[in-house]
């Protein structure tokens, strides 16, 4: 196996891969109208590609194309060297397309609608590798009515591999023919022929200039079909441009070229379709941009409302803060006299709170209670919680009022409409569903907030409970205990020896106990005050931090998801177009042929 053959196989594999990816792209569904449109186009394309692939090895279909009276039929006759398609001086002459093939050619493999042709079998050397079709003209019909030449022609064109674009001095700038060619040329190789060389001037230079914008024009043949046919009929070999044209069609489109031509056509088709799709989609993308911005704005609005509300609640819930901080500090300190005092205080507080105040009236307080205690509390209150429609309660607690939610949805519906995503907007949510979404957003938000609060608590507790401070409080507490102990010890061991009356009376212990409670309370108070100091600032910082953060999922995750999907699909389309372009660049084009640019 030679290198070139290997390269061929590789190229085939690449085309197959490209087609597979196109098929995959077409296979998925999209809610977005422009993408749906692209899929419809590509689906049609795939159908046509399939027929092309089936007849990859079949003889090439070479068809004439051009205005009426330019000598299409004469050229065909001259090419096959025999009167096979009727020529005439009345316009139009040819109405039914004429298919001319070698008697040995099997026409079934071509996928042509044979009942719409006049079929002629001619044993001519030029027909060994090709099938020639003489097409009707595109310029006598004023509209595409059934049975008109234009209709017949358009039906024919998708089956053609090579178009012989035939024109004359009179017709080479005809607007109708030019417009029609532009559509026909997609997925076809082109050959350009000026006929009537016996009567007309050579206009190839001007013609080439005119064609250059839209087509690659390697060569324009200038032929006199009538004399070429006469030459052949008397057994002379034709000469000049005609001879070269005939030679090109006879020997140069050999079996190996067939595949090349068809492959080039196929790639042209895919490429053109993909480019068209990309253009269509890119034109519509700005609306998606706007939708995404709007979605972002709406979720930002929600986020801001929640942050504001959280801030207010946190500032208001002083006692909860205090308890969290105390718990954190005692956990850090472990067992020690002062920390036991703090623990007792905090435990008392918890007891009180659980009895009355600490019903965690809002989700913010819930977050403040902290994850650990919260879960503990939650599990105990699970049933109770489920009983009340908690979601609703949560939603209203963070300032996500129904109004805000509905207004968000209302505005976003407009953007969906702009973006042609109406399919999605039919899934408009009821207020109830909106609340649920809001609750989801909120719990997600509070999850973040809760972690941050935990962080703050940890940090504050750490800062304000250093060893020095701890030592201070321990010493202060111990100084009282020490003093009382000193008095007791002194009275028991020393004073009682002196005189049994001097032993401390019972009310001393009562007094000592009372004073101890007061002293301990004073210390606890001082300590908690210290802990609470600057909390406002911390809350502000927390709120600012949260405000900078974005919610992962807004109120309308389905819509956000749709936007992301659309972006991904556009990327995919972009990628397909790029690969098609690359493969098309690499493919070895049959240089004798022209094609649409």
């Amino acid at each position, binding site marked *: 196996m030679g290198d070139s053959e290997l390269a061929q196989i590789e190229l085939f594999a690449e085309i197959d891969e490209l087609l597979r990816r196109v098929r995959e792209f077409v296979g998925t569904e999209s809610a977005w109208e422009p993408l749906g449109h692209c899929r419809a186009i590509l689906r049609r394309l795939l159908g046509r590609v399939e027929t092309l692939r089936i007849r990859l090895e079949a003889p090439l279909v070479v068809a004439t194309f051009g205005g*009426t009276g330019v000598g299409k039929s004469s050229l065909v006759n001259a090419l096959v060297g025999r009167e096979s398609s009727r020529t005439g*001086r009345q316009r139009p002459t040819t109405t039914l397309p004429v298919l001319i093939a070698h008697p040995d050619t099997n026409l079934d493999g071509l996928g042509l609608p044979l009942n719409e042709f006049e079929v002629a079998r001619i044993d001519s050397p030029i027909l060994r590798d090709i099938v020639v079709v003489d097409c009707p003209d595109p310029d*006598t019909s004023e509209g595409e009515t059934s049975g008109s030449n234009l209709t017949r022609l358009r039906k024919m064109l998708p089956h053609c591999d090579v178009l012989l674009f035939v024109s004359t001095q*009179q017709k080479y700038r005809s607007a109708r023919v030019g417009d029609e060619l532009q559509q026909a040329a997609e997925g076809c190789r082109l050959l350009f022929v000026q006929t009537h060389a016996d009567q007309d001037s050579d206009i190839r230079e001007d013609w080439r200039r005119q064609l250059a914008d839209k087509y690659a024009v390697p060569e324009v043949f200038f032929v006199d079909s009538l004399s070429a046919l006469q030459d052949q009929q008397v057994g002379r070999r034709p000469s000049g441009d005609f001879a070269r044209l005939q030679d090109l069609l006879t020997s140069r489109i050999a079996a190996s070229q067939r595949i090349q031509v068809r492959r080039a056509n196929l790639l042209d088709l895919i490429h053109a379709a993909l480019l068209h799709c990309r253009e269509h989609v890119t034109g519509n993308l700005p609306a998606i941009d706007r939708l995404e911005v709007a979605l972002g704005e709406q979720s930002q609005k929600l986020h801001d409302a929640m942050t504001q509300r959280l801030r207010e609640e946190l500032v208001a819930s002083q006692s909860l803060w205090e308890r969290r901080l105390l718990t954190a500090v005692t956990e850090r300190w472990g067992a020690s006299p002062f920390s036991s005092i703090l623990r007792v205080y905090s435990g008392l507080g918890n007891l009180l709170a659980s009895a009355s105040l600490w019903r965690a009236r809002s989700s913010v307080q819930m977050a403040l209670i902290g994850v650990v205690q919260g879960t503990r509390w939650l599990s105990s209150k699970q049933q109770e919680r489920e009983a009340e429609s908690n979601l609703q309660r949560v939603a209203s607690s963070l300032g996500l009022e129904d109004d805000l939610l509905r*207004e968000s949805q209302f505005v*976003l519906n*407009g953007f969906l409409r*702009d973006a042609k995503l109406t399919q999605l907007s039919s899934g408009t949510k009821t207020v109830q569903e909106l609340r649920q979404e809001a609750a989801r957003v909120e719990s997600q938000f509070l999850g973040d907030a809760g972690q941050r609060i935990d962080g703050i608590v940890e940090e504050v507790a750490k800062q304000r409970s250093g060893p020095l401070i701890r030592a201070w409080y321990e010493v202060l507490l111990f100084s009282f205990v020490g003093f009382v102990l000193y008095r007791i010890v002194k009275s028991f061991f020393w004073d009682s020896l002196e005189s049994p009356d001097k032993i401390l009376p019972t009310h001393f212990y009562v007094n000592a106990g009372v004073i101890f409670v007061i002293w301990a309370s004073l210390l606890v108070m001082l300590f908690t005050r210290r802990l609470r100091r600057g909390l406002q600032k911390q809350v502000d910082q927390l709120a600012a931090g949260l405000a900078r953060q974005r919610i992962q999922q807004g109120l309308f995750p389905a819509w956000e998801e749709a936007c992301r999907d659309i972006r991904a699909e556009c990327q995919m389309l972009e990628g397909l177009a790029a690969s098609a372009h690359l493969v098309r660049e690499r493919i070895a084009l049959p240089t004798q042929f022209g094609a649409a640019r």
Partner: protein
Amino acid sequence: MSSTYAACAEHVQHLHAAVRQLEVQSRLLQLAPLAGREWFELLERKLLPQLTDDAFLVVAVVGGTNIGKSVIFNHLAGCRASATSPFASGTKHPVCLVPPDFDQRHDLDSIFRGFELHQWSDANTALEDHPEHRLFWRTSEATPSNLLILDTPDIDGDVRVNWERADNIRRCADVLVAVLTQQKYNDAAVKQFFRKAAEEDKAVLVVFNQVLLPDDEEYWPIWLRTFCQETGVCPEFVYLAPADRRAAEENRLPFYVGQVGQVENLLQEKRKLKDDISSLRFHEIKLRTLRGSLHSVLHPETGVPAYLSEIERRGAEFQKVSDLVLTQKISKDDDWPPVPNLVIVQEVRLWWQQQREGLTKTVHDGFNAISRGLLGVYSLVRDRVAGKPTPPLDLFREREWQMIYNKVESVYERLCEFAELRNPLLQPRIEEMLSGISRSRLLELLKAEHNRIDFAQVIRDLVTAEMEAFRKDSPQVFQYMKWIDHGAAAVRPVTTFCLFITGAGPAGEMVNQVAANAMFYAAAELAGGTVAATVGESAISGAASTGAGLFEAHFRRLHIRFTAERTHWLHRMLAEHLYRAIPDELQAATVVPQSAAFQKVRDTIVVLESEVLASPGDTQNSEANHG
């Protein structure tokens, strides 16, 4: 005929002016502009400039690209007036041959409206590419007087502006020299062009160029037949010009007269094209083409009448749309949130206080101060226990906003439904209204406007107006109330303290204030009602024929007036920020068919039809031409 010209010219001018005016007025109907409509172009280019007594004929050589129009033209001119080239779409601007002194007698600019006129200097100038429509003219001694001969750009090439220029020349022409070839006689573009010419009753001379003689002798009658069948053209003469490039270049191409069925004569009769043209009966042709153009202008399906019915149809469509939009504006407002009675009562009280005078005023003011003091303490305690209550007006503002939002939403729902109908007239604007940006802008605007409203002031104004009306309408009742008030001043100490202590206070601070007010509790019936209204904030119940009942009626009317004012406000806002000019424009658009200009056009059509087209001899003529 000259008198007919003058009369007709006047009517045509009227028609033109009226139609122009109508176009301006019907701007809102979003119709296609007049320029570009076949009948209007004919009116402007043919009828207006050519309805003069000094008749002249415009002869134009027309045809597809690169079939030798300029060659034929040069034969008519007798010299190389127009450049020829082997390449197609050569001639880009018309070239006109003008008889001597013609330009002194006529205004060429008005004859060739829309063209920039240039003196001919060189045969090649018409080949140059310019975006504007140019026309090159030269005086030619050889041109018969009263004859303008033109070479025109092609009608089927890829330079589309050429088509437009050729169409414009076709409109003002009387005689068309149709150059055809065997390749192009049946081309769609060619057929379309000449079909219009036939409709306008132009005189047509057919020249088959580049004929292969004698081979094509048997074919040209077939070509001619096909061409005539397809286009409706009835040529005055038919010529055959052989395919002889050298003769063409040397300006000595023979023109054989083609006569159907007399093929043998063909080659013998070689004629000068120009002589035939000169021999044409000017006035007859002129009259014919003017009449043909007028026919086209007045054609019921393609002329002015069609334009009028288009306006009427569009007007009716707009009427329908307008009705729809207007019904959009009207929506039920029964569920508008009621303004808190509390606030109204407060305002009524304030107003009443201003009505007091003398001792009564002093007593009431004094005790009001005391009750305010007591109330202050109560509020302080309550705020501590239950938190500060939302002020009633803020609550109302919130509720009203909800209502406004609901209304906006339902308006949008209906707009969406409307958009589904895909009415082409309003679709772009509705889509714009439904867009996300306009939605958020509308909500923001409404919200800002809504927050700006001082409800207290609105209610105060309403109450003052209503209470003044009450005082004026029923002075006896007012007086009666005042008497009660005086009496109440005497028992004020008891009521102020007792009501507070017996628990009326906790029922709501207003109860106390209301209770402290003689007018509301002295008339027992009314007091009950008001307390109920204040506490429960429901509508006042129980109508009575007493003075209190009358007062209550005013009270209820206050509510209705307030709601009406608020809904009116919303409608105004929606009109200002959402519908904007649409309803007005729709209204304006619907009345176009009733306008004076419309009537004028219609009248002029009738006059033109009866006076100019209906004379018996002419009908025959036109029938013959249209047949």
